[in-house]
């Protein structure tokens, strides 16, 4: 992590993220809901940074499959 946070507790237990299924969501009780442009655009930005811009899985450039 950079910059280093105030307090971090981490363990080796891990969870899988499935790009096709993963989403950022507003908590129902949050003061920000869909339509909050700062967070909506950040959700799109970070999804792109994490998994790329296109659909998941990305199509093979030649259309062929392994």
């Amino acid at each position, binding site marked *: 992590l950079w910059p280093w946070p105030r*307090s971090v507790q981490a*363990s080796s237990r891990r969870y899988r993220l499935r790009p096709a299924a993963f989403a950022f969501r507003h908590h129902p009780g949050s003061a920000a809901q869909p339509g909050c442009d700062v967070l909506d655009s*950040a*959700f799109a930005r970070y999804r792109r940074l994490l998994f790329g811009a296109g659909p998941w899985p990305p199509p093979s450039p030649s259309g062929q499959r392994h």
Partner: protein
Amino acid sequence: VSKDVLVVSVVTEGCNEFPMLESLENYTLTIDDDQCLLAASTIWGALRGLETFSQLVWTSAEGTFFINKTSIKDFPRFSHRGLLLDTSRHYLPLSSILDTLDVMAYNKLNVFHWHLVDDPSFPYDSITFPELARKGSYNPVTHIYTAQDVKEVIEYARLRGIRVLAEFDTPGHTLSWGPGVPGLLTPCYSGTQPSGDFGPVNPILNSTYKFMSSFFLEISSVFPDFYLHLGGDEVDFTCWRSNPDIQAFMKKKGFDDFRQLESFYIQMLLDIVSAYEKGYVVWQEVFDNKVKVRPDTIVQVWRDKKPVTYMEEVELVTKAGFRVLLSAPWYLNHITYGADWKDMYKVEPLDFEGSPEEKALVIGGEACMWGEWVDSTNLVPRLWPRGGVVAERLWSSNLTTNLDFAETRLSHFRCLLLRRGVQAEPIGVGYCEQEFEET
């Protein structure tokens, strides 16, 4: 077990506002069996948490994405964590500025100090005074920032939780203003004759203050941040000294030191800007020259050793009750061969003699990239990851100082920047798992 949703919750309403110096950026991030939750006081804190979340995700050799069970509580040490970019010595295309804002967000920097104009060029396309850019920019068609460009920068920054602090330095560093506003600058003399050269803004004419009132009325409405940076550094008195009208004005006012004349000008300017209900940041010379300023003025310490060391200067400014921004040790345009980031990392902004109240007046600092030797061809590798070193010093706890720990993480962070398409330079030997052609 899969995690398919990161739930984001913020406490305070306010999606259409601009970030401010006082904005809270704290967040907690909890990834465990029961939840995958990012909670923050404000949307600005949520942005910081999203960045942290993105850095926690890793990919296995087979290409599967994972995140470990993690609990993070985080908040910044300083509220002003800035990056100064000079777009006058060399023009930077709009895309370079926007790309820089992206990388600032990756580093949790939150103030873009836009040093828009200086001696060589005036790229800011003023609506009220279009001749400034028409006659003062490198090229009035291509090398300017239009009203739309400025608006785009401000919005792009807002969406990343970054304030835009615009600097219009006066009375010095203003040679590019001269062609667009005849009579604004002081005519220099050689003996009894005008030499044809011009010096700082002419402080003895009413027309100067009339112009400044109109110009800063526009600037105050274009830039939404409460603060403007008014410069005030490196005023060369040679030209003022040579001008007989200035000499007569000095005599009439009873000034025997040109610093008094500079103070006279700056006080008039500060009154103008204050009337528009803006606060201001000034370079340390304004304080050194004992200009009377408002108590809420922010003084930026940029000089390394003169008149005193930068830490002694911080001590003097805080003792006088003013807030401080530190940038003297963080001039990224100064480069040396090797790992020069370590000296920047070792700086402790509160390492001066002072009471807790005085230390609380240090509100942050800025990494500075002056433009003499930097344009869009080499800006990125010179900025990053070294700018991130300043970012960590300003965000992380005062106990986060271990150089080995920092080196490991910074190398890894540089690889993350490469993956995101940022041409960050290496900080030592090593390699990144992914070396992307597009970088």
